[in-house]
Structures are given as C-alpha cells and as structure tokens.
C-alpha cells in the first residue's frame, strides 16, 4: 500500500543529494510520468495550499495531462488536481524508477500502489 512507502520516504527529511540533483519542475514532464514530490518552491501561501493537498516530499505523483501550454492535471493521493502552469513550475519532482511507467497501458493512467 502506498502509505508504507510514503512513510519510509518521509523518514529522511531531505532526499539524498544525488536524487536532489535529478529533480525537475513538474511542469516539464510529459503525461503518464511517475515520480515523487521533491520540494516546493514559491510563496508561503502557495506552499501551504499545496502541502494541505498532499504535495509532501516523497509523495508519489503522476502527470495525467500536460500539453506544454496552459494548466495541467496531476494525480496525487487518489485525487486529480488541475494546476496552473505557474504553480506546476514551483513543484520539483524526482523520477521514480526512471520516470516513465514501465508497462504503460494504452488507455490512460491508473491507480497508485501497484509497485
């Protein structure tokens, strides 16, 4: 279950340095991309709102829709969330197992917790 993994990740406050180097803005990622939240940038209010929604370092996240312009859709903690591009630029994420889902099903995204 997802929680177990989450807790382990959260145990270490800041992800290891080598991982931190790989972190990229959420807005740059293509659809079906899997990873974990690395850190939140931006103002206190934005960080507070995102954190309440579950954008916590170590939490798994999947990009559902991203057309390169305009807002994007991500799935985090069983919820689909639409994010403005500016907001998505402030979320740094790390790829999980290389990022792209290994057995990418043809019809769209699926739930967390299967690996």
């Amino acid at each position, binding site marked *: *279950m*997802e*929680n*177990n993994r*989450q*807790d382990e990740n*959260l145990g270490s*406050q800041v992800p290891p340095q080598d991982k931190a180097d790989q972190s990229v803005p959420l807005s740059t990622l293509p659809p079906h991309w899997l990873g974990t939240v690395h*850190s*939140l940038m931006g103002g*206190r*209010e*934005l*960080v*507070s*709102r*995102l*954190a*309440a*929604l*579950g954008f*916590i*370092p*170590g*939490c798994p996240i999947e990009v*559902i*829709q991203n*057309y390169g*312009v*305009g*807002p994007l*859709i991500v799935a985090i*903690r*069983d*919820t*689909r*969330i*639409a*994010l*403005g591009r*500016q*907001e998505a630029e402030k979320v740094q994420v790390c790829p999980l197992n290389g990022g792209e889902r290994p057995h990418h*099903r043809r*019809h*769209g*995204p*699926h*739930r967390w*917790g*299967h690996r």
Partner: protein
Amino acid sequence: MDKEILVALAGQPNVGKTTVFNLLTGLNQHVGNWPGKTIEKKAGTLRHNGTVYRIVDLPGTYSLTANSPEEIIARDFIIKERPDVVVAIIGAATLERNLYLVAELLPLPAPVVIGVNMIDVAKREQIHIETDVLEAAIGVPVVPMVATKNQGVRELVEAVDALATGRRDYAPRIPQIREDHRDVLEALEALIRESVPEPYPSHWTALKLLEGDREMTALVRGRLPDDAWEQVHELLKAHEDAIIDIAGGRYEWIGRMTRAALARPHTGPVTLTERLDRVATHPLWGLGVLALALLLIFWLTYTIGTPLQDAIEEHLVAPLGDRLAELLAGQPPWLSGLVVDGILTGAGTVLTFFPILVIFFASMGLLEDLGYMSRAAYVMDRFMHAMGLHGRSFLPLFLGFGCNVPAVIGTRIIDSRRPRLLTILLAPLIPCTARLVVIAFLAPIFFGDRATLVAGGLVLLNLVVFAALGVAVNHLVFRGESVAFIMELPLYHVPNVRTIALGVWQRTAEFFRKAGTIILIVSVVLWALSSFPGETVEESVLAQFGRWLDPVGQLMGLGWRAVLAMLTSFLAKENTIASLAVLYGAGQSDLAGALSAAITPAAALSFLVAQMLFVPCAATVAVIWQETRSWSWTGFSVGLLLVISISAGTLVYQTARLIGWGV
C-alpha cells in the same frame, strides 16, 4: 424544555457535505452570509428525540490555515462559538486527503465525529474501509454513510448525541508535530503563552505561527512586547520550512491511522472518471463538450423559459393590472398609477425572472453536482487567465447572454474573492437577451439593410470592452497578481436531485427576498419621478432631469428624449422601446417613422452604442449588491459603466461628425 446541541458541519470540498446538511435539516434551514463576508452561511435545525440540534454548515476548506477567508471562518467558529460537536464529513474514495482536515480539527477545543460519506463510490473503485478499525485508531466515533441514499444519517445523529451528552468517552489520538520541530514549538509556546488572546489555545496558536499563518502572526505580534516578538521572529525565521514538515507530520499520522482500516486494489480499474475526463478535459473535445452543455442550457431557456415569461406577463400581470385599474377607477388617478404602474410593474418584472432563474440555477447545480463544473473551468482557464479571471468565471459569464442576473449570482461557484469580484464587475458588459431585443428592434429602423452588420458590431464592441476592461482592472486595481490556480477535479457522480432542488429554491428565494425588494422600490420611485408633477411624462421630474443632462446628451448628439429613454431602461432594458414610443408621441407601429425623422444616423449609432454599454438594469444592480455586500463596489460598478457608456457614445458621435458621416 428541549435540550439544545450546537453542531458544526466541517469538511473539504466535494465530499457531499451539502447533501448531508440537507438531509439533517430539510427545509428548516436559513441561508445568509457570514458577518461582514461575501461567503454564504447556512444554518438549520433538526429535532430528534426531544433534542434540538442547531447545525451550522462551515465553508468547505482543505485545511484550517489562513489561506482564505473560508478557512478563517471555519476555525474561528469552532474556537469562538465552541460547538458541542464538530461533524467532519470525509469522502471514502479520498479518505487520506480528506483526513487532513480532521488532523487540523482534532487539536481544536471541540469533540469531533467523523462521517465517512460515499462509501458506495469507494466500493465501486474497489476501496474498502473498515470504519470500526478507523474509529479504534483515531479514538473518535466514525460513521459510514451514503448520504445520497439516506444511509448512516441516523447513526451520525446518534453519535453526535452520545458525544454531546457525555454518554460516550472521547479520547482522540491527536497528531503531534515531528520530533525535529518539537523543541521549537515548545519554545514558541512559552514565549507567547501570556499574550495569546482568549479564546485561542496557546499550543494551537504556536503551531499556526510555525506554519506561517498570517492572521495569527499579526494577532500575536500586536500583543507581544517588542523584545519577545524579536525572539519569536528569530525562531520563525530559522524555521521557515516548518510548514511542509508540519503538513508532512499530519500525513504521517493519517498513514498510521488508516494503515489497518483501508484496503485498496493493487491495480485499479480504468475508472469512469478517467474515461470521461479523456474527453471532458481535452483541449479540443473539452471545448466541444462545454459548447454542447451551454447549447442545451440556452435551448431550455428559449423553449421553456421565454414562453413561460411571456405567459406570466400575458396571463397574470396584464389581467391583474386591468382588474386593479377597474377596481381603482373611482379613486384619484395617482393611486391607480402607483398600484398599477409602480407596484405591479415592479412585481411583474421580478416575477418574469422566475423561469429563467430556475432554469439557470438548476443547470448550474446539475453541472456542479455531476462534477463537471471543474472540468469546464479547467478547459477555459487558459482563456480567462489573461483577464485575471478564473476558469470558473466562464460559465456564469456565458449565461450572461441570457440574463445578467443569474450570471452575477452564478459567480458563487468561483471560490476566490478577487476573480469573483472582477467577474461580477464584467458581467453587465455581456449583452443580455433584453438588450439584444432592443438592438434587434431599433437597428433596422435606423440602418435598414445594414442592421445585421450594426447589431453584430455592437455585440462585438461589448466583448472588446469586456476584455479590455478585464485586462485593465487586472493590471491597475489588482496589479496583475495572478491567483494560484489549484483545483481539485472530483470524481464524477450521479447528481442528487434533492441537493440541486434545494439549491435552486434557496437562490431563487433569496433573489425574490433581497433583489425583489430593491426592484419594487426602484419601480415605484421611477413611476413617481415620471408622473409628478404634471399630467405627462414631459413635465415630470424625470424629464427635467433629462433636460438637465442635455449637455451630456449633446456630446453624444442626443436630445433629452433619447437620454430619458435610456434612463428608463434602468428598470428593465426593454423599456427603452416603450419610452421612445411615448416620448416621440408615436405608437410602437409608427415609431419607425418618428424616430428616423428625429434622429440622424450618427446620433442613432451613438445611442445604440451607449445603450449597449449603459448601466445594468435595476435587477442586476440589486444582485451585484446582494452578492458583494458592498455599496461602494456596487456604486463603482455602476459609475464605471456609466462613464464607459457616455464616453463610447461621445466618441462615436464626435468621430462621425469629424468625418462628416450621417450627421
């Protein structure tokens, strides 16, 4: 005497809280505003087994940190009003995220009961929750519910009662801050303990300071001596990152609480929501779906709403007017005038809004309850962003083509204040049906063959002014600060008829009560101004006012009669035509001849332009006030449109004169 229990209903958005509230209170509810706020407050009562439950529906919020007025309202109610029980509604399919609010509620000084709603939806997603295990873990009563099927409500009330009367122990496992910040929190609390105002708990206040809560920080700062504040400030500065740590701690707590209670499939099925979203949120198909939804709403409006409006006018208002005139025949003429032309006209105007309001509110309620509204906002956001508007601004604005009144009321779906105010400001620039009727009638009279071109141009002009004003206000007044776009896309679900019907009833009733009164008053005042003193309109106070405005009229090339006709459109836009007929001494049939003889094409164009941009009708102004609760914003809105309208009319006429067209 009956015993009374005060219950606060809390929950994140999209958990079916409104449905639960409606089930508990039925029609025994009162809708108003939170004191000094534009946010809706719903309260109601439930009588059960000799107990009166006063239930207050708190605004739906994701957390209780001061990021929005809603969050401050919710936490202040619990801290200051001390409800006997807080009922937290959470959605079974989004259990963990919804529990975040519970993690924030537990440290507050009121016992909590958790209602896990939409168990059926979770089952469909193959998510299983053992509520008794969750109850044992958190140490508070947990009640499984399917509010749309009326399941679990009785048990919820029973749990509330047991907790409020002390028949049940309350020993919650309150989430604690992570190890690394425990010392800081204690140090902070020690520093501020003496200065935290009643009734805020000092531990909770210290936690909020550490979270960077603006409101609590300001409150504490105002009461702390400078040297103590200096120390507090140093501590806070050294731990600016604490917010993520605290939120992370809450999610860890949630993980521990749900570990044994929650069972989920390893690979989820492709859900209905995923399949629907592939179309509904697609940049192209999404627009198509939205267009279809809007088309349907307008089709309903024009096939059911408009005929009903006409029927009300023809079979109710008109015969009633005749009957009243007959009855008052022996009385002084002013009495009959007051009753028929003043009061009845106003009441009739209010009444004719009824069909269109019901259709619009029902459609919007349906789309919202279905879960579609967020998708519509998502596909429109990129277009609305440049004007400082929210994706959610689009739907109410578009409905403005039907009528500006439901457009202004419909802005309630926009959850942040600034885009909502801006949407309300811009809504009257959307040409409503009534204004289009005036244009459709007058354009052929003045411009013959080119009427379609002129009418199209006028609509376009309104939209250009709309966009320009949006961009300008966004930059000048709001300084271009963009509001963060973060929006949950809830699971689609079968709409609940009861929830929608109650919403329609509440909004419509509020319109009749609040805006209806204002419209009635405006109607009587306009009647009085146009009837006294003297026999005809030409001698009235209103006409004198019109003549006094003559210099302004001259700028636009208009005589006082045309200016007066525009003024009377304040009650209802279609009044323009009737007023022109009266003032130019013609019946509506030979109005064409009289008008084209009296008004030059240049003046006519300036008249139509000014008419299209003129101040909104009394009903719209009334709902602007009803929704913003601010006379100054309402006044600003009306004044701004007046200036725009006169300037545009002047510009058109003076330009025409310069180039020597149609003078």
